[in-house]
């Protein structure tokens, strides 16, 4: 992770603040920083979204391409995750520097999506065993401001919500199967993202745990619990991250807070996405010049 070096005194200062449920930027232990979400920011993608969470800046592009289904799952499409840590975030990520963090995040994304309920993969199948839709979800990390996993999962959910896959008809002909793309560009299928989970990272500082830690807070937390929560409150992944260890009681507390905060995050995200959807083409595109 892009990390910042703190002196002992600063760490103690942050720790005491957290004990009194008051953080350096005035937030409580369970409050998120302001999240800005905007979809359809990149043109030649099937769906895209940009999320700014404090200083963390994430851009996700989803491209739907035709592929052949995996052998062990012949009648399902699949998702491919790729995380690219741009050198703009920190010089550390130049060349192959960002690869290690990139694979770690990509593996976590694979882990939170490897269950039946999050995305209906059968919808992506065109004809079994031969061709299906492959969704390449590419995450671009533009700036690191702490709490990358939450921002990335929100951006992925927004991008999947924004994804439009062109409708395809399979024509049975004597020569074999022809795949005919519908000519109306707006005639496309949308993905149902209700069960797509979002990651909530709870970092343990002193005896309490906080949500949405900034870089400084991450530097003085030895262990954090990463859980992915769906809008219905079920957990699809749980992972302890960091060099320290956690006592069992605090893990159970963290799971409860994570669920509460996660459901709140989902509802507010869904309202924002629906609002933006209602504006349709009239909305003023902010993009990167905002």
């Amino acid at each position, binding site marked *: 992770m892009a990390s910042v070096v703190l002196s002992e005194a600063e760490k103690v200062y942050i720790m005491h603040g957290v004990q009194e449920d008051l953080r350096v930027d005035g937030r409580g232990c369970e409050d998120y920083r302001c999240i800005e979400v905007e979809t359809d920011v*990149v*043109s*030649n*993608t099937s769906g*895209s979204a940009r999320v700014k969470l404090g200083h963390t800046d994430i*851009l996700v*592009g*989803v*491209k739907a*391409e035709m592929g052949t289904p995996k052998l062990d799952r012949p009648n399902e499409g699949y998702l491919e995750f*790729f995380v*690219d840590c*741009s*050198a*703009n975030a920190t*010089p550390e990520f*130049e*060349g*192959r520097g960002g690869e290690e963090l990139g694979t770690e995040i990509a593996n976590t994304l694979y882990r939170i999506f490897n269950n039946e309920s999050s995305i209906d993969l059968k919808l992506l199948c065109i004809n079994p065993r031969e061709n299906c839709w492959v969704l*390449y979800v*590419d995450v*671009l990390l*533009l700036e690191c401001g702490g709490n990358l996993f939450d921002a990335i999962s929100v951006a992925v959910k927004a991008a999947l919500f924004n994804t439009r896959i062109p409708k395809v008809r399979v024509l049975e002909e004597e020569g074999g199967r022809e795949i005919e793309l519908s000519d109306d560009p707006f005639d496309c299928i949308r993905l149902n993202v209700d069960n797509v989970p979002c990651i909530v990272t709870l970092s343990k500082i002193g005896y309490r745990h906080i949500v949405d830690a900034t870089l400084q807070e991450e530097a003085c937390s030895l262990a954090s619990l990463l859980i992915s929560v769906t809008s219905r409150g079920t957990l699809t992944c749980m992972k302890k991250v960091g060099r320290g260890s956690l006592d069992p009681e605090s893990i159970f507390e963290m799971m409860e807070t994570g669920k509460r905060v996660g459901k709140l995050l989902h509802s507010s995200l869904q309202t924002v996405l629906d609002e933006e959807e209602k504006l349709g083409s009239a909305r003023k595109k902010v993009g*990167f010049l905002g």
Partner: protein
Amino acid sequence: MRGSRSKALHDQALVNCQYSMATFSTGDRKRRPHGDRQSSEMTLHLKQTFEAAILTQLYPRSQIDIYVQILQADGGNYCASVNAATLAVIDAGIPMRDYVCACSAGFIEETPLADLNYVEEVTGGPQLALALLPKSDQIALLEMNARLHEDHLERIIEAASKACKDVYAVLDQVVREHLQEVTALLGK
């Protein structure tokens, strides 16, 4: 100065570039953001362009990192990168001989066209990328890769440099406005 000390130059700054394209930036998905031949070539061009423009001798034994990240590509990638990098270097307060403005130009049906988009680039035909120091009218980098009759070249360069000067006007105006805003803020 990061990384190995050996690269450090005793009398001038080392310009270190990285050009990478987002995997979703082009029509069909790129497998690797950087590290392929095209990106390394672009990185080299950027490095050469800015070594010509930045007053590197003012910062011996130091390193200037210029990272270009393409989010959406629609032709003229190199030129857009140069213009963006110029603004970034100015914003960073690094002294430069002159702005570096870049523009691409093509030659279709006997008429020179400035600033080709992706469709025009893909149709083939001669293409020229020009990086210009507008005030002193010096050419920082010129790259032309096609068969072209010699006297057409003059007209295409003319079109490209005129376009560069227009870009220069826009960049200059933006920089001045930004400066006024910032000084106004600081002034209060």
